[in-house]
């Protein structure tokens, strides 16, 4: 399964985190074993560019769309046999110790049954 791993920096970072792994070790272990496919740091929100099309016009805006306390600082695309392996990889990332990591499973288009189920959920809400 593939997961988008969002690496977040959070305002409530622990003052003195202990046993934080080195990013070099994480990259070596994760990319070296083929568990991660692609990833990078991201420029800060001030460099974000919003793009929308409204009434046929391209509307470009400065900054991110949602002002959240958490900032997406980077991402990695993981390829793991199951969620627990993805959790293990996420927990070994230094930012899991000083910020937060969010795993989002890929939702491939061929899973039509899921699309239908998600639709009925939205109606129920």
């Amino acid at each position: 399964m593939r997961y988008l791993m969002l690496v977040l920096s959070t305002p409530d970072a622990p003052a003195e985190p202990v046993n934080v792994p080195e990013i070099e070790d994480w990259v070596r272990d994760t990319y070296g074993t083929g568990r991660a496919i692609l990833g990078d740091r991201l420029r800060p929100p001030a460099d974000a560019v919003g793009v929308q099309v409204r009434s046929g016009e391209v509307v470009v805006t400065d900054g991110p769309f949602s002002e959240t306390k958490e900032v997406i600082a980077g991402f990695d695309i993981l390829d793991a046999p199951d969620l627990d392996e993805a959790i293990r990889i996420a927990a070994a990332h230094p930012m899991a110790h000083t910020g937060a990591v969010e795993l989002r499973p890929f939702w491939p288009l061929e899973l039509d049954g899921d699309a239908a189920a998600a639709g009925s959920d939205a109606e129920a809400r």
Partner: protein
Amino acid sequence: MTDVGQAVTAAFRDEWGRVLAAVARSTGDLDLAEDCAQEAFAVALRTWQRDGVPDRPGAWLTTTARNRALDRLRRRKVEAEKVAVSARLTERLDPDAADPASEAADAVDAGTGWAGVEPEDPDGDLLRLVFTCCHPALPLEGRVALTLRSLTGMTTAQVARAFLVPETTMAQRLTRAKRKIRTTGIAFRVPPPELLRERVSAVLAVLYVLFTEGYDAWAEPADDVAGAEERRALADDAVRVARLVARLLPDEPEARGLLSLLLLQHARRLARLGAAPDVAPRTLEEQDRSLWRHDEIADGLTVLDDALAARRAGPYQVQAAIAALHARAASADETDWAEIAALYDVLVDMTRSPVVALNRAVAVGMLRGPEAGLAELDDVASAPELAAYHLLPAMRADLLRRAGRPVEAAAEYRRALEQVDREGDRRLLSRRLAALRTAK
């Protein structure tokens, strides 16, 4: 009920979890496994009538459920191939993507069959099922409901009644939990060693929530609270599942610690409510101890000794040790408060929980007097976790009452009554408040 009907009912109670777990391992799909297990029981009801009850009902049901799963997987595979052809045309499909269901169907088609891919392992399957249902990536209420549904064979309607929600709400809660297992890639297996300790805690926490849901109902009058009987039965179910989990995890003393804690608490159930006309909960101090189930207490004490022998203490073992001290005291006056307060010190260190600290303050109040208890209570009262917790003013009120400060006690009982959401506790607080008024 006919003999066959009874046999199926008994098989349902004893074998549901195993049948479900075996098919879930074969297919990696809990939803499919549930449908097929249900069908197998329906088939049993029809064919056992005609052919008689088989020697090993569980094995018969498992085979039948697996064959059903196989039929469905074959059909799904044919459809998937159709989809794959069209997907290849649009180059969207990842050709290497593994699908356990189609792999299972492939194995069968290749002639290896179910037997070739999986030796029988009923206990292992049950353990995998427990860990899957209690995976911390699922919402807590989904975990609790799914554990109950999967391990006891209760129907969705029965689970809904026990949790006082409409059946459609419960069906949706279960469906969402099962879907999340599938869409997030939660594997049907026992977690790897580096995650095991945390996951065992997660399983035990779910069982404790389940038990508490039922145990709370034992402090409510059964007649005038909706669904009380069904809710009370949850406590029995939780004890059953905890016993199973303790057996499946022999190297985890905390699993036995939890079982012991549940047995020792559950043993008090018949003493928890006062007799008419004052049908309000009785505190430990007020309970008629002859109503305690002393056979179950003996069982709980044995399980606790067994857990402690591993010399790896944990929060459930400590809580069980506290419950054991209450259980061993012939009367409330003979309670060993010094030992209980000492155990609460250990528990506060282990959990850092303000709720535990609150209970510790009560124990200190019993040991060294209510003023000492109040001082301890004030130390923890500002914790944000306790902001809307009705037991904070309730415990302060009890200490003030013991300290001979009835006016302040009454004010705290009233504050607690504003925050309480459980019927049992509400009645207890009202009774205490009324008693203060008559004493004046």
